[in-house]
């Protein structure tokens, strides 16, 4: 059936987009927003409209946690499931919310007045555990406090009154409060070097004028006077490497794409940020939207792209709002559009909402999702996205932080950029210091700063009376960093030599109150819900790891469990299809290497030295 032979109830939502499969996800998200779910009939109508199978659309709806096949309505209660809130007892908050509302995560109460969800990191880590009700933030929660707030909502009290009379409640997210709070702590600021975050203190981050007043768009002006070849050479000379995790040299990526003859070419900014303990790209997109736009414009000039996309996490509403406003302002100012700064080069940037699971940020899954298909990773030993990327065309995919650093390189020159950092890792890295750190928040340091300087000099160590235990880069598949590695200078190769990863900018500080086994379990359970589930080692290996870790944390560990975890981990690393599964065992394997005693205590003595796993309490199911 074609769209013109059948009138659809959902017509206005469908026809907001052209009938092409790549618009499948945007329409599904719009339907979810409008109706609280994706109705079966809407799915059929959309399939007719796009000319794709309804089965494919249903697969997307069931894959992505932001979409639902059951109606969700009422107040949306979002419990933070991020790493820092987890350390501070988010599970108790979740249980309190489930009890107060009589529903489980992902469900809507029978009368339709509340829907309960979770989202990794609400961006208020410093005050966690946190919960959001609609747009309001409730921080520093206790289970009792959460229950009280929810009861008041249930009683129909005016939300404004509830917010005004609840300590730690905010009508909207307390932006960068953490940073201001620690302005008093000198080193947190003086040791920073701000290349990417230079604009973070802007009064109006969306304003073109304000951005230009501080040298903004000068880099783009300079790039406009250069050939594509010279632009790429400048990026190569700067030595900048990608901040999305792998540290791939950005110049090489751009050159590979420049060398491809096929047209059109595309440029994508990866703003998925699916890691549970990282909140770096979010603040950059919110606070420095023009730096990302300028970086993308320079990238587009380098490869001759006329269209660019910003793939932004669904939960990052504020970031999308700011980016859109900044794009509109740049269009207005003639910086984007049919003639970039009057040069005759055409460039349009569009924001696309990302589904949000961790796998959605992986290159092949991301591009598949943007083409309107399932965000599954694809097996390929030879195809590169610079050649066959988005819509099978040559594409540059860069992380938001990578792109935000590009303008500085063009304004100040590659040599100046190279002068910062180490030989192998030039420039700066933005980190999000959180967990048990005394000083928390977002900060930017030159590469070469040691982990110890980051945690102790800038972060102020852990709270008085507690002792540092370990550092976790915030990704779910990053290795645990023990105390003895803290003198390692921060750099891709420097960390890799020690067998740990840079990660994408989270730095979660753990102290003696935190259980290494339970942390590993948290990450494995996170991955069970965040992998695409395509291949055996990842899908089934995670299932078994999760079961073994649950029993260890419940005090039911058996002899041989640790060896089995190692065996499973090795096979997952060897045989998984994509980097998610290949690195999924890292949090377990690395933790067992550095904290073997603690793991053995759990299994042998049914004892948790941190007192987190209630190993010896028979009735309690341990820490969930």
């Amino acid at each position, binding site marked *: 059936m074609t769209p013109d032979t059948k009138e659809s109830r959902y017509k206005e939502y469908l026809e907001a987009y052209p009938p092409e499969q790549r618009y499948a996800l945007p329409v599904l998200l719009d339907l979810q927003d409008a109706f609280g779910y994706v109705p*079966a009939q809407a*799915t059929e109508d959309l399939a007719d409209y796009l000319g794709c*199978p*309804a*089965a*494919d*659309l*249903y*697969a997307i709806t*069931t*894959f*992505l946690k932001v979409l639902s*096949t059951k109606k969700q309505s009422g107040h949306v209660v979002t419990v933070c499931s991020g790493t820092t809130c987890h350390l501070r007892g988010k599970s108790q908050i979740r249980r309190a919310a489930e009890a107060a509302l009589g529903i489980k995560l992902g469900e809507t109460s029978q009368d339709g007045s509340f829907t309960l969800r979770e989202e990794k990191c609400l961006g208020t880590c410093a005050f966690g555990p946190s919960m959001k009700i609609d747009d309001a933030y409730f921080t520093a929660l206790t289970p009792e406090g959460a229950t009280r707030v929810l009861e008041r909502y249930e009683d129909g009290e005016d939300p404004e009154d509830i917010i005004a009379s609840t300590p730690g409640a905010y009508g909207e997210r307390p932006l960068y409060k953490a940073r201001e709070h620690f302005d008093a702590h000198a080193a947190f600021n003086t040791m920073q070097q701000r290349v990417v975050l230079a604009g973070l203190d802007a009064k109006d981050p969306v304003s073109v004028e304000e951005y230009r007043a501080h040298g903004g768009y000068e880099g783009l002006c300079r790039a406009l006077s250069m050939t594509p070849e010279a632009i790429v050479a400048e990026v190569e000379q700067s030595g900048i490497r990608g901040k999305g995790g792998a540290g791939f040299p950005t110049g090489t990526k751009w050159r590979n794409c420049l060398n491809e003859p096929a047209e059109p070419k595309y440029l994508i900014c990866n703003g998925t940020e699916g890691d549970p303990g990282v909140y770096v790209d979010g603040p950059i997109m919110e606070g420095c939207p023009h730096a990302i736009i300028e970086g993308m414009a320079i990238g587009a000039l380098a490869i001759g792209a006329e269209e660019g996309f910003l793939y932004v996490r669904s939960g990052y509403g504020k970031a999308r709002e700011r980016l859109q406003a900044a794009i509109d302002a740049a269009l207005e100012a003639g910086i984007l559009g049919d003639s970039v700064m009057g040069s005759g080069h055409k460039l349009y940037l569009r924001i696309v909402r990302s589904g949000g*699971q961790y*796998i959605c940020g992986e290159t092949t899954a991301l591009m598949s999702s943007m083409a309107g298909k*399932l965000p599954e990773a694809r*097996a*390929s*030993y*030879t195809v590169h996205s610079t050649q066959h990327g988005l819509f099978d065309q040559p594409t540059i995919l860069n992380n938001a932080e990578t792109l935000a650093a590009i303008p500085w390189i063009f304004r100040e020159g590659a040599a100046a950029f190279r002068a910062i950092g180490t030989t192998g890792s030039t420039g700066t890295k933005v980190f999000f210091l959180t967990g048990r750190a005394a000083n928390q928040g977002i900060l930017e340091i030159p590469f070469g700063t040691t982990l110890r300087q980051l945690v102790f000099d800038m972060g102020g160590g852990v709270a008085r009376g507690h002792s540092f235990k370990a550092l976790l880069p915030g990704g779910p598949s990053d290795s645990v960093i023990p105390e003895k590695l803290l003198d390692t200078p921060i750099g891709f190769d420097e960390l890799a030599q020690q067998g740990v990863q840079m990660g994408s900018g989270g730095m979660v500080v753990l102290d003696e109150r935190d259980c290494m086994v339970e942390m590993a379990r948290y990450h494995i359970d996170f*991955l*069970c*819900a*965040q*992998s*695409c*589930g*395509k*291949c*055996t*080692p990842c*899908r*089934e*290996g*995670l*299932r*078994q790891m*999760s*079961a073994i870790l649950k029993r260890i944390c419940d005090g039911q560990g*058996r002899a*041989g469990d640790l060896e*089995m975890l190692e*065996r*499973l981990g*090795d*096979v997952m690393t*060897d*045989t*998984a*299809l994509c980097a998610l599964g290949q690195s999924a065992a890292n949090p377990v394997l690395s933790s067992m290497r550095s904290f073997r005693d603690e793991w053995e205590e759990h299994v042998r003595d049914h004892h948790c030295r941190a007192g987190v796993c209630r190993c010896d309490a028979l009735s309690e199911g341990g820490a969930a």
Partner: protein
Amino acid sequence: MSEELTITIDGKPCTCERGEYLYDIAKRNGIFIPTMCRNDEIPEHRASCRLCIVEISEGGRTRIVTSCVYPVLRECEVRTSTERVKNDRAMLLALLHARAPQSDAIAQMNDALGDPSIEGFVTVDGEKCIACGLCVQACDTLGASAISMINNGTEKQVAPPFDMAPKPCIGCLNCARVCPVDAIPYEEDEYVRSIWNRNFTIAYCESCGKAIGTAAEVVHRAHENGEDVRFLCDDCK
């Protein structure tokens, strides 16, 4: 402009074209590599089961690759049953056996190539499907795109949309036919075939009386080819 290369697999020199998949080269040379999600009728390989792993030494580096999607681009040395390959594969089979305890095919392969010392896994009771995705691919290429892989992570499974009898289904049985573990149930007698909670009338050739699939399938194929609907078998057409 295909280019010929010679590689060695388990010590045997094998010639191949540049870009050919390792698994195909091995097969042509009579070297057995176990597979589950590979089917020659399906052009694109999902490479989801990972059972076809082999060890490859190439340019001074030795690693595990999945042979069904590994294109040979230069000279290399391949070993199909090193200790590492056998260990990894045994674990994959144990994992699949725990996921799909009802599957005889997996149980048999696990008996032959598995490692009995791997035990204590949680099982998905009553499950037969290994989530390889072949049925969905078969339905997309040979059927009517009626089913898909739904959910993600450990919840991944095959289902028709909204768990209802799928409207586009034509009862062609391609999904059930390609399933390596016979996980898709169907029934049929002289008149009716039932699959995915739908019943289809069996069609017979109007000329010779031979069964020619379901009526829905005949209609679907005619539409696909832009032909008039004729209930004739290939021989009588």
